[in-house]
């Protein structure tokens, strides 16, 4: 091994990756600004644990910190709902579909809140 820990190829690789990340950030920023985007955020015990734009079709399992509880969150064609959950009562599943900014799905046993944020209601959502 040589005295110098870093080789020329390392620096070229790092520079290339930085450039790629920068360009992607730029592209993402331009795309993001063009739409008055709505976001779906999941809060566990008040802490934001996930966020998705409402126009992405997604099916994901949100687990409670102790891993004992889970809720399956679905975003499908801008409709947001809990498809299934292992909580007693299943109230979060029964809440049905939310679509507008400010609306919430709540699972009390899991201390989970799913909220649509952004758009016109952005200030309300922040001050909650």
């Amino acid at each position: 091994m040589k005295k110098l820990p870093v080789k020329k190829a390392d620096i070229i690789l790092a520079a290339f990756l930085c450039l790629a990340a920068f360009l992607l950030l730029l592209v993402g920023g331009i795309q993001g600004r063009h739409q008055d985007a709505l976001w779906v955020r999941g809060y566990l015990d008040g802490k934001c644990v996930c966020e998705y734009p409402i126009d992405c079709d997604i099916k994901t399992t949100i687990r409670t910190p102790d891993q004992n509880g889970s809720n399956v969150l679905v975003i499908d064609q801008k409709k947001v709902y809990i498809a299934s959950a292992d909580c007693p009562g299943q109230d979060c599943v029964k809440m049905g579909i939310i679509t507008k900014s400010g609306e919430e799905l709540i699972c009390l046993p899991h201390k989970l809140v799913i909220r649509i944020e952004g758009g016109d209601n952005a200030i309300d959502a922040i001050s909650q």
Partner: protein
Amino acid sequence: MKGKLNAKYIAECGLLLSLAVTASYVETLIPLNIAIPGIKAGIANCVILFILYRHGFLQAVLISLLRTVITAFLFSGPFAFVYSFSGALVSILLMNVLKKNSIFSIYGVSIAGGVSHNLTQLLAASFVLTASGSGIRYLMTYYLPVLILAGMAAGCLNALIADTLIKRIPDKRKQEG
């Protein structure tokens, strides 16, 4: 390869594996799982990097894959297993190729490993999480730059740790041979 499966080799693997699992546990304490639950920074990779340089490719693959299985059972669950398994496999294959190539130092190898680890996890996550192409496009646009930068940072840190370990810990096999 002759006579490798002896008690000493197995004990050594067990020791390295427990070290790798401990590093994974430390990693679970660092919350990077905003947005995509289960995706990890890849700090545990420093142990794998050390094994790759000191003990060789086969042992590194073995420890790396066993680590993902054990951490899935202990902390993260089946979804995260898909991410971390694919991430670990791709990054270690790439790191091995780049290490043999020798135009990169341990830093370049580690950065490439960290970034490929994260990108593979993102790709795996987009297959697991999203039902259609829009989700993949979204994940790529919003998280690719973050994961590239996080992978580079983790890669530098891992290389620094592994490099220090390689220099400080004497290679027993060389002394004996």
